[in-house]
């Protein structure tokens, strides 16, 4: 009966206007969060063997430098300088082999042999399981990581033209390589086993312990300065990195920094979209507030009479509070439904781009939606209560 009285003068048009506006705002904000969550893994594709946020740095090789014999290696001073940069979490040197290696592969009655080049980086940059990625003196098999490109080169180029069988990654892992190592007047044969393929490291990696041992045994005595440095960075999108590299004439080997930049632009774009959504939400919230104020104004007499009859302000405010919270809640539910529908439209496309696309679910965006709902509702409740308290 209280409601029969208080619903007088409710403007369906105004509430519908609010409903639609708030729905738009809510969907845009939630979709922004959701899209960012779903899409950002595209740019953060990880190499399972290498820590996520690292960059490999080389010096530029210039024609002039080649002719004049200018060194493209990093001096220890330069490495220390990189270490001291605020964006660098840790820095590792690539250690090249100072001995000759050639690798042979016996497979299905055929054998291939090629000259090879080995490098190592500190083990903490390699994310292969610790028991696989180690070397102790006298160990039979040496774990190796090769670039995935090499396998592709073999499978799609070499093997096809020579009528050789194509190899899968799994098969490669089962085959052992013969490593012929020579230097210092010695010649040895070791077994090597490929434990992983890297998309992003263009080198053949062996454990650092093996490299140290082999270098001291077969290598010449003079230490070589590294020509490549691996840096773990806290944020690849940090513009100081690009500045630093530019200033010093360094180059990065892969597109990690580009991905960082794209992620950064994605963040900006999503941020703008979300800001627009928030503005729409704020405006719609304003409409609701004005509408409720108008309603209260029109019903002032009734509210005053009810209060004089002994109805408490909270009891009189309750129907309006339930009304607004109900509308807000309906908006939230519909926004979540809309989100699920829209997401299903683009997730097919994403699933093709990202292998194993699961997304983080819609928990994050729903949390944002619920937070928005709570904020708007709480503010409404307080505003209505204040307005009614002001009547008498």
């Amino acid at each position, binding site marked *: 009966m209280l409601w029969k009285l208080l619903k007088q003068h409710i403007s369906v048009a105004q509430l519908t206007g609010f409903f639609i506006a708030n729905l738009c705002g809510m969907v845009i904000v939630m979709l922004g969060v959701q899209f960012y969550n779903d899409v950002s893994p595209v740019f953060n594709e990880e190499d399972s063997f290498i820590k996520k946020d690292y960059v490999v740095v080389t010096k530029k090789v210039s024609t002039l430098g080649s002719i004049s014999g200018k060194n493209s290696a990093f001096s220890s001073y330069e490495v220390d300088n990189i270490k001291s940069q605020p964006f660098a979490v840790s820095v590792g040197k690539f250690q090249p082999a100072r001995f000759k290696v050639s690798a042979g592969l016996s497979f299905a009655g055929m054998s291939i042999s090629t000259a090879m080049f080995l490098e190592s980086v500190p083990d903490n940059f390699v994310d292969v399981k610790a028991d696989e990625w180690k070397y102790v003196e006298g160990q039979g098999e040496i774990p190796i990581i090769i670039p995935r490109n090499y396998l592709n080169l073999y499978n799609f180029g070499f093997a096809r033209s020579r009528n050789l069988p194509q190899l899968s990654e799994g098969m490669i892992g089962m085959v052992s390589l013969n490593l012929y190592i020579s230097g210092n007047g010695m010649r040895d044969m070791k077994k090597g086993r490929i434990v992983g393929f890297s998309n992003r490291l263009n080198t053949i990696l062996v454990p650092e312990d093996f490299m140290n041992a082999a270098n001291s045994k077969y290598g010449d005595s003079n230490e070589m300065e590294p020509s490549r440095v691996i840096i773990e960075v806290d944020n690849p999108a940090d513009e100081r990195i690009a500045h630093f590299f530019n200033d010093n004439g360094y180059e990065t080997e892969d597109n990690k920094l580009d991905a960082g930049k794209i992620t950064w632009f994605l963040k900006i774009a999503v941020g703008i979209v979300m800001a627009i959504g928030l503005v729409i939400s704020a405006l719609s919230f304003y409409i609701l507030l004005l509408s409720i104020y108008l309603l209260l104004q029109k019903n002032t007499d009734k509210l005053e*009479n009810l209060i*004089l*009859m*002994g*109805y408490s302000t909270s009891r009189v405010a309750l129907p309006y509070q339930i009304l607004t919270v109900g509308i807000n809640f309906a908006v939230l539910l519909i926004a979540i439904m809309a989100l699920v529908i829209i997401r299903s439209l683009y997730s097919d496309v994403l699933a093709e781009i990202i292998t194993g696309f699961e997304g983080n679910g819609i928990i994050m965006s729903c949390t944002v939606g619920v937070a928005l709902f709570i904020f708007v509702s709480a503010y409404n409740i307080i505003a209505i209560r204040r307005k009614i308290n002001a009547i008498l």
Partner: protein
Amino acid sequence: MPSIFSSRDDINSEIWRKNVTFQKGKSYLIEAASGTGKSSLISFIYGYRKDYEGQICFDSRDVRTFSGNEWTSVRQNSIGMMFQELRLFPELTAGENVILKNNLTAYREEKQIKEWFRMLDIDDKWSEPIGRMSFGQQQRVAFVRMLCQPSDFLLMDEPVSHLDDINGGIMASIMENEIKERGVGVIVTSIGRRLLMNYSEMIKL
């Protein structure tokens, strides 16, 4: 005393600038000419206007110190009020107007309410919207509504201005019954027509 009178020194009143005590179980008639602040007095006592000088106390507690919640409680449990302008809801029927109050206090049986409607000769108006009833009929509805709560005092601001003597008499007898049974105090104002009761005290404002 209303603030607006404070500059006047020609006030000749038995309430303004005096100490007056109203007691439970007694009935008071406040007689006044128009413009002497009768409705103001009622609104001061009922707590919806505060533009007065002096002090109003319920059991020695100054009502200026009452919070909103305390006033709500007073209006639910201590003071029944029949406004001069009635303050009924024209959108609701006569029955709903009374039930709306009784739902709040859960004080009376619906049977009792209907009995009063019958006594006051408005039982056929139960389902009639208030907006379509005469002022005299509305006064009777407002009267019944006032009774639907526990009370120490009943305030009635010109309750019979539009009533005939027969209905006024019925109202008076119901009131006297209430005084006798519940021991309520009654304060009635009038500028001419008065509710015919045996008043304990008549005061000229």
